[in-house]
C-alpha cells in the first residue's frame, strides 16, 4: 500500500456510560471513575456488571426519527453532537455529496424480542421495525443523506473499520462529507452470549492485569464527520484531527479466540503505518483494544512490545466496558481528544503485571504525551483486526 492523503475530521460526537458528550467522557476518564453495575435496561437473571447509559439521553424533540431501536438513538445522539461540533447545520446535507458508514452488531440483528412473543405467529410490526431500524438508515433518513450508505458488521472492529472505509470514500472523491462511526446498545442476547463463552468478568474488568478474568460489556456510540479538502478549506475553524491511515487484516484462525502469534494484528498495523506514512517513532501513544480477556491482552501486549517498544499504551474498556460495534469509534474519539489535551488516562483496573506478558505495561496514571499522532486498534470475533492512525489538526490542505 502507498501512503494516502489525510482525511480531516470536522467534528466528533460520543456517548457512552462515561458521559453523554465527548468532553464529559474525557473528564470522567481523567478522574479515574467507573460505575459498572448489573444491567437495568433489560430483564435478566444474570448479574455480571455492565456499563450502560443510564440517563434518559434521547431528546426526541430534536429528531424526526423517533420510533427506532436504542442502537439508532445512540447513533443519532452522537451524530447531532458531531454535526454541532463541526459547526455545520443540516443544510450541508442537501447541497453536498454526503454518505454514511456506521458499524454495529445489534443494529443489524433480527433481535427484536417481540419476534419471540409468540414463536408461532410473529407480529408483523417487529418485521417492519427491523427493516427500518438500521442505524445507518436512521441517520440517512434523519439528515436527508443522498450519497452511499454502508453498515459494517465486523463484530467488535466495526466502528474502526467504518471510519477507515469512510475515509477512503472521501479520498476517492465519491463523497464530500461522510458521517462515520459505530453504535451498539446493551442487549440481553449478547450479554447471555458472552457468558456462554465464559469471557465475562463478574467484577470490574482489569485489562492487562495478571488477575484479569474477562470483559464487561458496555453500550454507546461515537460519530465522526469526515470531510474533503474542499470542505475543510471552507470551514471556519480547524478540523479536530485527521485519519492518516487505516489497516485491516484477518487472523484466519478461530471465531472467538485471538491468534496466538498475532499475525493478523501485525499485518493490520503494517498496513496502517504504510498508508499513514508513519513509523513507530512518530506514535505518541496507543489506545489498545485491551478487553481484559486472557487471550486478547496477552497477544496484544506481545505485539505492541515487539512493534512499538517504549510507546505508552492503555485501554479504556475499564471506563466504558466493551461497547462492541461502537468500541472502535469511541476509542478513536478518545484518541483524538487525548492528542488535543496532550494527556492520556490511566489504564484503570491494572495493578499487577502478568509474568506471561513481556515487560511492557499500560500507563497506571494519567500521563502527558509528546507528539501529535497516535494509534487506535480493535480486535474482533472472526479474527478481524483493525488499526487507525490518527493525528491532531495541524495539517493545512
Amino acid at each position, binding site marked *: 500500500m502507498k501512503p494516502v492523503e489525510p482525511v480531516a475530521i470536522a467534528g466528533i460526537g460520543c456517548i457512552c456510560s462515561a458521559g453523554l458528550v465527548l468532553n464529559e467522557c474525557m473528564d470522567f476518564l481523567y478522574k479515574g471513575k467507573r460505575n459498572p453495575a448489573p444491567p437495568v435496561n433489560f430483564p435478566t437473571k444474570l448479574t455480571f456488571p455492565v456499563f450502560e447509559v443510564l440517563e434518559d439521553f434521547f431528546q426526541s424533540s430534536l429528531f424526526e426519527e423517533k420510533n427506532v431501536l436504542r442502537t439508532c438513538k445512540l447513533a443519532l445522539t452522537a451524530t447531532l453532537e458531531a454535526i454541532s461540533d463541526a459547526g455545520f447545520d443540516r443544510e450541508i446535507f442537501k447541497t453536498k455529496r454526503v454518505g454514511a458508514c456506521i458499524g454495529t452488531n445489534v443494529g443489524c440483528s433480527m433481535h427484536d424480542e417481540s419476534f419471540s412473543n409468540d414463536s408461532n405467529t410473529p407480529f408483523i410490526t417487529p418485521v417492519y421495525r427491523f427493516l427500518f431500524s438500521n442505524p445507518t*438508515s436512521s441517520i*440517512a433518513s434523519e439528515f436527508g443523506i443522498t450519497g*452511499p450508505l454502508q453498515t459494517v458488521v465486523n463484530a467488535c472492529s466495526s466502528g474502526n473499520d467504518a471510519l477507515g472505509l469512510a475515509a477512503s470514500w472521501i479520498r*476517492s472523491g465519491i463523497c464530500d462529507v461522510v458521517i462515520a462511526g459505530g453504535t451498539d446498545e446493551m442487549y440481553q442476547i449478547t450479554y447471555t452470549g458472552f*457468558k*456462554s463463552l465464559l469471557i465475562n468478568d463478574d467484577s470490574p474488568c482489569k485489562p492487562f492485569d495478571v488477575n484479569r478474568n474477562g470483559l464487561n460489556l458496555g453500550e454507546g456510540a461515537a460519530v465522526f464527520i469526515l470531510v474533503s479538502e474542499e470542505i475543510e478549506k471552507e470551514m471556519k475553524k480547524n478540523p479536530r484531527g485527521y485519519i492518516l491511515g487505516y489497516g485491516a487484516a484477518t487472523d484466519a484462525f478461530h*471465531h472467538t479466540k485471538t491468534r496466538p502469534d498475532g499475525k493478523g494484528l501485525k499485518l493490520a498495523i503494517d498496513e496502517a503505518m504504510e498508508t499513514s506514512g508513519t513509523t513507530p517513532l512518530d506514535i505518541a501513544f496507543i489506545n489498545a483494544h485491551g478487553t481484559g480477556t486472557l487471550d486478547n491482552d496477552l497477544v496484544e501486549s506481545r505485539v505492541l512490545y515487539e512493534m512499538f517498544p517504549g510507546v505508552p499504551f492503555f485501554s479504556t474498556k475499564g471506563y466504558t466496558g466493551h461497547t462492541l460495534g461502537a468500541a472502535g469509534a469511541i476509542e478513536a474519539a478518545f484518541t483524538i481528544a487525548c492528542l488535543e489535551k496532550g494527556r492520556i488516562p490511566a489504564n484503570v483496573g491494572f495493578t499487577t503485571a502478568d509474568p506471561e506478558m513481556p515487560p511492557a505495561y499500560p500507563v497506571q496514571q494519567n500521563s502527558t504525551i509528546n507528539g501529535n499522532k497516535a494509534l487506535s486498534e480493535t480486535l474482533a470475533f472472526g479474527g478481524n483486526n483493525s488499526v487507525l492512525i490518527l493525528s491532531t489538526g495541524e495539517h493545512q490542505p
Partner: protein
Amino acid sequence: MKISIKGIGVLGGFGCGIGDLNNALITGKSSSSAMIIKTTGGDIEVPAFLANTDRLKSFVNKRDLRRIDHYIRMALLGCFLALEDADMLHANRGKMGIIIATGYGSTCNTFDLQHSVITEAAPFCSPIQFSNSVHNAAATYISILLKEVGPNLSVSHYDMSITSAFLSAYQWLQEERVESVLVGSVDEYNKILGYFRHCLYNTGNGKADFAGKMNLEHAIIGEGANFFLLARENEADSPYGFIEDVRMGNFKHRRINLPENAAFFLGADGYSECDEQYAEHIPEKAFVASYPHLYGGLPVGTGFDIAIAALSNKSGTVFKSGDSPIYNSGRLNVIRHNEDLGSRRICCLKLGAGGSYGCVSLNH
C-alpha cells in the same frame, strides 16, 4: 477503472452453479418448495426458492462442517464455486480481500438463540450458536478455510447490502489495497419471512402500506448465495465482462443519473413499496428485464442480477425477462425473448427502503 469478473459462484432455487443459473434463464423456470408454517390460527403454506448445499462436501471435509449452519454453508459454497469457476481454488491468490453482504444475517440460528435466551427459565445459550449468530461468522469460516489473512469485511444494509459490498470491493481494488476481492452475498429463508409474505399477500394485513403489487405467484421468498472473484482489469481475463461503475444514493432527494444505451435489470421482487417506481427513473423506452421469478425475493437479489448480467456479457445474449406488473406503464421496452446484447452495458438497479438506490453497471 474497470473491474473484471474472474469467476462466479451462485446457488438458489434455480440450482447450484453458474450452469444451473444459465439453464434457468433459458427455460425461464425455477422450482419452489411449499413451506408449512405452524401458527396459532392453523398451518399456512408459503412457497420458497430454497438452496441446496450438498455440493459443499466436495470442497470441505465433513468434519469441518459439523458446526456450520445452513446460512454459512450457502456462503461457503458460493465462495468455493466462484473460486472454482475462476480456476483459482488451488492457485496462489496473492493478497485477496473478502467482502460478504447480507440483508438479514443468520436468521434461523439467531431466532433459535433468541428463543432460548428469552424463554428458558435460566438464561442459556450455546456458545457455538452465539458465535455463529454474529454477522461476520460466514466471513470468518471463509477466511479460516481459505487461509486468507487479507482484509475481511461484512456488511448488512438490507436491500442495499450487496451494492455497498461492491462499492467497497471497487474501492479496495482502486486503492491497490488488494490484488483481488472475493465479494458476495447470502440470505436464508426463515419462518418469520414466510409469515411476513403470508401477511402481505394472503391476508391483506399491511398490504396497502408496504407490499409491491407483484402477483402472488411471482413474489416468492428466495434464499441463496452469489459470489464473485473480482480483479483489476489489467491483471486478468474478463470472461464475464467488467464492473464499470457502482453507485448508491437516494432518489427521493436527488434524481438517479442513468445511461441511455443500456439494458436495465430491475430488482423488483414484490417486497418493496418502490417496485412500482422503476419506470419513473429509467430512460423512456429503455430495455428492461427482471429475474426474481428465478431466484425469489430476498434483500441480496441484486447479486443474482449481477451474475445474470455477467452471463449476458459472456454469451452476448440478454435473457428473456420474467413477467411483472411494473411493466404495464408502456414506457419501457420489456425484453420478452432472448435477444442480442449488442454494445449495450447492463445496469443492475435496485430501488430500496427509504428511497435508497443502488446501481451496479457492467460492460463487456
